């Protein structure tokens, strides 16, 4: 289980304190497909980064398979950090423009010192992941600006899965992509789940997608977690106009 308890996170902005997360408790089981929906600005991305141990919460606890995460940021133990991997919404922003796709995919293993020393073993490993995410060897030698968003997001997914994480957090991974690429990415994740009990948190504003792909759905609204009602909270032009008068 990836367990979060009482996560609270506030940001200080010129307009005052903004509560991104308010007492959020959440459990993600191995092999599960949990969906998280919410409007933009509801705190979804903050939650994703806290769960991936990239952002320390103000309050609350996080545990991975019973092991509490003690420190934060760079101090979280590397093996805990590797167990929870995050795939970002924009593959453009989430990849170093100066690295080739091949380096991007292998970088986490290299950082962990887990890269096979043997040249051949390394090439095999890379070839296996290239095939799994549907890329080609030719694309691996390119820089991010030389491939499409969809191809780059496939590389990002390979980068996350190559560490064999136990939990995968997908933060709007397909909201900038077309449906066929979206289907391909979800198929890759599903295949990984068939092979081993990978717990997946799929964060999206697309309720139809989440409803069809996930086994369980929770909703985040103004930083608070709720079980979604049958229909989403629809903003009428009226209450939206009031937003401005706050």
């Amino acid at each position, binding site marked *: 289980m990836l367990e979060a308890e009482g996560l609270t996170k506030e940001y200080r902005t010129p307009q005052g304190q903004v509560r991104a997360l308010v007492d959020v408790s959440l459990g993600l089981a191995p092999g599960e497909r949990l969906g998280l929906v919410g409007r933009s600005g509801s705190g979804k991305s903050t939650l994703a980064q806290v769960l991936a141990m990239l952002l320390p919460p103000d309050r609350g606890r996080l545990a991975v398979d019973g092991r509490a995460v003690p420190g934060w940021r760079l101090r979280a133990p590397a093996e805990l950090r590797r167990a929870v991997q995050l795939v970002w919404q924009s593959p453009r922003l989430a990849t170093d423009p100066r690295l080739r796709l091949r380096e991007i995919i292998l970088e986490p293993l290299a950082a962990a010192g887990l890269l096979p020393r043997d040249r051949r073993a390394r090439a095999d490993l890379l070839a296996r992941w290239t095939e799994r995410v549907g890329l080609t060897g030719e694309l691996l030698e390119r820089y991010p600006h030389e491939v*499409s968003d969809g191809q780059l997001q496939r590389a990002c997914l390979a980068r996350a899965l190559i560490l064999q994480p136990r939990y995968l957090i997908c933060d709007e991974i397909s909201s900038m*992509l077309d449906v066929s*690429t*979206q*289907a391909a990415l979800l198929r890759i994740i599903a295949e990984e789940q068939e092979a081993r009990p990978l717990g997946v948190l799929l964060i999206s504003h697309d309720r139809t997608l989440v409803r069809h*792909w996930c086994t369980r759905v929770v909703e985040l609204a103004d930083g608070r977690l709720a079980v979604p009602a049958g229909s*989403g909270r629809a903003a009428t032009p009226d209450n939206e106009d009031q937003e401005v008068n706050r």
Partner: protein
Amino acid sequence: MTGVSVLEVEGLTVRFRVPRGAVQALTDVTFSLGRGEILTVVGESGSGKTVLAHAITRLLPLNAEVTGRVRLDGEDVLALSEAAMQRLRARRLALIPQSPGAALNPVRRVGPLLLEIARVRGLPRDEARARLGGALRELGLAFDAVAGRYPHQLSGGMQQRVVNAAAMAAAPDVVIADEPTHGLDADLVETTARQLQAIAAHGAALLVITHDLRLARRLGGRTAVVYASYLVELRPAEGFFTGPAHPYGRALLRAMPEHGGVPIPGLSPELTALPRGCPFAPRCPDRAPVCEEAVPPPAPLPDGGMVRCAVHAGG
């Protein structure tokens, strides 16, 4: 097709010269659009659909080579001088940009900004005010409620409406919306769809560019599918969403999560190295030997639509 077409695109082809060769962004695209009509162009990122919007408005970068014809009320847009083109963009051809937040000047209040845009579009001051008010009202917003605010003080949905109103006010002949629902929540998508329909009902020919298939279905009108620089299918939306004629169209619909989420095997071809035959052939389940020999010509469909497929031509 209803009425006389105001926008006619014929054999439009766009190539970009790049250090590695040439990128084929659009190949032989032909369609026409009448007043009050909606045409939604769908396709994946990198298929050439944004280039279509920029080619019609002549906002392409300098390394683009454009051939073919774009006519606005019979006038050859591609042959106009830059000054005439600027007038055209100001008064008759409106482009609604992808992110309204980024398109509004952040240091100017919305009211003066809108009035200036309207003046550029050739409206006298009093009339500009009245028309903007009318356009905003149609979109569910009062001019005085937003005029004194800065763009960042408006919500995303309101920014979108302000940009739409600016496009509507001068009553342009053609409105092009580029990814109008990019990054919007589901309820705002619905609002945006209603507004786009209002723009068309206002009398404009509306061209919508999007990767959102649900938006295309919601908007109605006609749907055009772009794949690897080609227009492969152009149909009334209802016909397309109930029975697409091109194998790529069928595969796209099956990839929607509500229809099974089945991915299309393989990757799209590189626009720098398109195959000799049908660009979809390598990924196509219905591929025949003839598909790899030449790109099939557009074939008419019974419902007035068009499909570019050697196997499914005519039915």
